[in-house]
């Protein structure tokens, strides 16, 4: 039996479908990211899971039981809010002990668990501080410790890192991975940062306009997206027109064939080909590579890799990220040859 199942959940606000027939199956202990642009319904799904809003239709099954009618306090789901929502009048220990006190644990057990949680998030020395005396990263840790202390079935996190600066964010990402590993709790992690989703999750569900457009492992979604939205949203990407006749593809102003796993095996009058900026190389490349000529229209210095804006003869434009040793500013305005491995080219129809 599946651990947690979201079954065609729909939630409307007046005419707006914040969730439109969303289904998702979660295995116990998974780290799933809900990724999508602003307003795509990620928070709405999380709130429905936590019980704070009542979906218009659909079911949420935990261990096979429908929990839609259960109040938030009866669900045993931990929730980490954007902005943390700590109790300002309670100390760090008091915050972490809160779920244990309302569950009427005895004092000895509470003290032991609070100690354990403080150690887990590395806040032992700050146990008696009030939340307003903590930095953003420290508050974040308190929020995590509080939501994990009572042993939740699932931990729901709504963009917990969005308020932190980049350095701290990366540090907390590692920290979250570690907490996930050490506690074994199922994490449902909302973010609109694709990099975060790619590096942290076992699985990503990509949201668009209240629907899950695609879900899968980070590698699968990144390497072989089946929708234009995902191909565009996850990582940088370029799109050009292409077509296939008699097994041979036309595109990038040249013709080539694609390896079997990339090719659908059917001819197509018009399709969309994608190629990531980082997969484009300078020069003609090796045998079997697709090579094509393009004009360098813009040059942006980027440290180890420079970014070139290229225009094909067909007029289509795209971006290439080329090692800084190979091209310099003087490439600007020239017609140069570039290449890509056929496996790096994807097809959407």
């Amino acid at each position, binding site marked *: 039996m599946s651990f947690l199942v979201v079954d065609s959940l729909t939630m409307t606000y007046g005419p707006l479908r914040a969730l439109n027939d969303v289904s998702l199956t979660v295995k116990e202990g998974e780290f799933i990211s809900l990724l999508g642009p602003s307003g795509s319904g990620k928070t709405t799904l999380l709130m429905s899971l*936590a*019980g*704070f809003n009542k979906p218009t239709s659909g079911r949420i099954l935990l261990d096979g039981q429908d929990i839609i009618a259960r*109040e*938030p*306090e009866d*669900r*045993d*789901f*931990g*929730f980490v*809010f954007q*902005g943390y*929502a*700590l*109790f*300002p*009048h309670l100390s760090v220990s008091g915050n972490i002990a*809160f*779920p244990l*006190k*309302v*569950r009427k644990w005895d004092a000895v057990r509470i003290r032991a668990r609070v100690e354990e949680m403080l150690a887990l998030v590395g806040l032992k020395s700050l146990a008696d501080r009030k939340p*307003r005396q903590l930095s953003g990263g420290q508050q974040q840790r308190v929020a995590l410790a*509080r*939501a994990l202390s*009572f042993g939740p079935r699932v931990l729901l996190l709504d963009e917990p890192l969005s308020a932190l600066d980049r350095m701290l964010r990366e540090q907390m990402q590692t920290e979250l991975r570690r907490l996930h590993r050490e506690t074994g709790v199922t994490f449902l992690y909302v973010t609109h940062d694709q990099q975060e989703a790619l590096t942290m999750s076992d699985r990503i569900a990509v949201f668009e306009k209240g629907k899950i457009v695609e879900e899968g492992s980070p590698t699968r979604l990144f390497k072989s997206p089946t929708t234009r939205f995902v191909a565009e949203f996850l990582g940088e990407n370029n799109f050009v027109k292409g077509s296939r006749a008699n097994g041979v593809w036309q595109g990038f102003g040249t013709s080539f064939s694609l390896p079997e796993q990339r090719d659908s095996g059917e001819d197509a009058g018009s399709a969309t080909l994608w190629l990531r900026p980082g997969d484009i190389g300078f020069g003609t490349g090796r045998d079997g590579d697709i090579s094509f000529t393009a004009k360098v229209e813009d040059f942006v210095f980027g440290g180890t890799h420079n970014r070139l804006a290229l225009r094909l003869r067909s007029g289509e434009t795209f971006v290439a990220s080329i090692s800084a040793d190979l091209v310099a500013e003087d490439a600007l305005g020239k017609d140069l040859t570039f290449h890509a491995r056929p496996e790096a080219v994807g097809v959407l129809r």
Partner: protein
Amino acid sequence: MSSRFERFALYLTVPAGLLVILLYALPILQVLGLSLTEGQGAIANYERLFTSRAVAGVVQTTLAVSISTTVITMVIAYVIAFGMIHMSDRQRKVALLMVSIPFWVSVLVRAFAWITILRSQGVLNSGLMSIGAITEPIQLVYNRVGVTIGMVHYMVPFAVLLLYANLTDIDRRVVQAARSLGARPVSVFLRVWLPMSLPGIAVASLFILVFSLGFLITPALLGGGRTLMIAEYISVQISNTGRWDLATSLSAALLIVVGLLLALALRSPAMRAAFGGSSK
């Protein structure tokens, strides 16, 4: 920082400032001055406040009525304000209107209205007698009960508005967090709402208490001369017996007590936050 507009805005406050000084600060200083010079002089005037049996009685009544008014008002107002933050926008508008209606009715009218309701042959007593709940009318007016009822009625709208402002400032996500952590409604109230609204409760209580200590019209009418509070006592000293020495020294003492109360309250960080607004 001081742009031309800001300076202009500052000048606009000058007339109001002058008025306050002229009509408020100066008379108060004069009262203070009189309390030092009238009668047998400063020491005698202030000494009498501590030795006079009449003054002791009045102070005791004032404290008792003010404290019970504050407590009762706060309980009623908290219930209303707490209800209001859980209403839909429409309901809340209606509720706010109901809360503010008393502001438009003169204190005098309200006091007389209470008398007609509470007196022995009043609406309440005759109602209760006609349904047989009581045989003798209950004494509800011209005593502390009556004064307290009238004062609570006057104070509740103020307290509701103060508490409502404080309660709406509480981050609702913190309440949601409590629920997600397993707290049931009673726990949520006792462990989250109540402690987080303590600053608001403190501010509103202080306001009501200070306001009550100097209340005049309602106690005068509903007390019927039998429940004498400080303000009425002072007014009687001035207009009936011409005792300026007693009146001014008692006024000065009241002013000092209220001032001390406020100063003491502002020492607590919660209160300072409530008044100063800063430091979250």
